[in-house]
């Protein structure tokens, strides 16, 4: 069945409010964390010949990093809860596409979107409504990276903390062999998340342009557009 031409589309509510809220909380806290993190790792030489009195910009940068880390962590916990409460596109099962259907969809995505092939028998029903199988795998990978950041980050933070929550992660740093190793992991994983973001943003634009179903705006309004034929009851 062809995928282009004039068709009737139905508006479907894919991303519920909590999913969208999580997405943007996550995106902006990650941005804040990456920017402040890079500054903390290699502070710019913007001042010289000054006295420390009344200056605290580096302390503030670190404060922003830690505050954003808490928001980021809470956002992730929130999303994990929503994986059990939300609709079928938010459900935790989505992130384990290792079923026959899921693997079939994976093949479709690799052929169509990664290798850019144009198989003759392509069917619009094969285009995922929520996350496609490959994206779902990438997001589970991202969740693992985010978890590593939370564990190493709070682990490094634990010794300065007075609250019990960060102290729960105190065992992480010795397990990795000290602060230097933990910092290195924290830093490398930051770059992996940056690389993820580049690919993620590109593919959202790609799907928006090549499928014409409102991929980009779906993360603002929550709606996507699917062909009328895909809705069982009209």
């Amino acid at each position: 069945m062809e995928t282009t031409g004039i068709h009737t589309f139905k508006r479907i509510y894919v991303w519920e409010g909590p999913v969208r809220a999580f997405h943007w909380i996550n995106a902006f806290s990650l941005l804040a964390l990456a920017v402040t993190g890079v500054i903390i790792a290699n502070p710019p030489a913007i001042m010289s010949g000054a006295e420390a009195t009344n200056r605290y910009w580096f302390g503030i940068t670190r404060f922003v990093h830690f505050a954003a880390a808490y928001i980021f962590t809470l956002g992730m916990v929130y999303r994990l809860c929503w994986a059990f409460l939300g609709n079928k596109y938010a459900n935790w099962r989505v992130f384990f596409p290792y079923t026959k259907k899921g693997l079939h969809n994976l093949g479709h995505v690799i052929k169509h979107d990664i290798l850019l092939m144009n198989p003759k028998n392509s069917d619009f029903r094969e285009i995922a409504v929520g996350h496609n199988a490959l994206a779902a795998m990438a997001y589970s990978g991202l969740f693992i990276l985010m978890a590593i950041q939370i564990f190493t980050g709070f682990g490094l933070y634990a010794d300065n903390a007075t609250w019990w929550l960060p102290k729960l992660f105190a065992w992480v740093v010795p397990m990795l062999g000290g602060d230097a190793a933990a910092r290195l992991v924290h830093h490398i994983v930051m770059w992996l998340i940056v690389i993820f973001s580049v690919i993620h943003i590109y593919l959202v634009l790609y799907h928006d342009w090549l499928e014409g179903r409102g991929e980009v705006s779906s993360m603002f309004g929550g709606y996507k557009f699917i062909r009328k034929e895909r809705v069982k009851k009209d």
Partner: protein
Amino acid sequence: MIETTEKRQTYYESIIANGFSRRDFMKFTAFMAAYLGLESSAIGQIDKALKTTPRLPIIWEHFQECTCCSESFIRTDHPIVADILLDKVSLDYTMTLMAASGHQAEAAKKATMENFKGEYILAVEGSVPMGADGNLCCIAGRSAIDQLRESAAGAKAIIAWGSCASNGCVQSARPNPTEATPIHKIIKDKPIIRVPGCPPIGEVMAGVIVHVIAFGKLPELDSQGRPKAFYAKRVHDSCYRRPYYDAGLFVESFDDENAKKGYCLYKVGCRGPMTYNACGTIKWNNGVSYPIQSGHGCIGCSEDNFWDNGPFYERLTNVPGFGIEETADKVGAIATGVVGAGVVAHAVAANIQKRKELKKRVEAGKDVEKNVERNI
């Protein structure tokens, strides 16, 4: 060398017998209580313990090490520590400081192990080579691992002096040719106090020993087996240059104006923010200074693998497997650039490959546009 069969003196008795006054003794107890971070009422407890408990025999083993721990120890602030506590009173065996040598020394050790089985403290300086059946380090014709197992068997507790015994230090740096191994990875069935540092601060070493003899138990240890009183904080957190760090004022190179002004050494590789030690408060050489105060960054000598976490004059550790001068930032930036270029190439290829599909869709969209009445 003291005879292990003599009547066991208390610490106080032996201190007085060695010509110190009671006043010296009281100063010493107050001094120790302060270093251990105890309140003033504990001075009385230490005083009482040193007057009533018989001296604790100590066997001090030397394996793969440079003796800097012993050197540091005998330079502690207070003369009683060096003169009395170990050199004359407590040390039953330490091959670098004892008068006896050869068979006599080994006999003294054996006597202590037999007479004070389950009571003596084993102090270990140096790591143990596990490679080549342990033959890479032999003392008195026997391998270090053999010696360690024997002397650890009857010990009440083990003190792992310095980074060698507690972390492996330079001998265990990659590629670790002798398979140098810290004590806690060999002896699993004894309480072990790790006192890392290359060397540890003399006062810290004295503090640990005084705590053991004064209270009859090990000091409070953290999850790494290090005494909390000395290793709970990072050097960074007690550094007198910390205000410059929070103000974002950094030394850029060792010869710049900022270095002269005493700014934070973070950007020239100071390991203070990742090193747990008491250098910032107790300092070195009788409290005179410590590396950061002398204008050099901390090299993190009390941390695990500190030789492999180099280079010492750069902030970030080298990424293993990416060449010696590559840092995570460089690798990350290059990888991001490569991915970015790949994404652009993919976008171009997609538009070419899918041009028919795209064209059809655009045309379909245009058709709809034509059939919609313009009302605004």
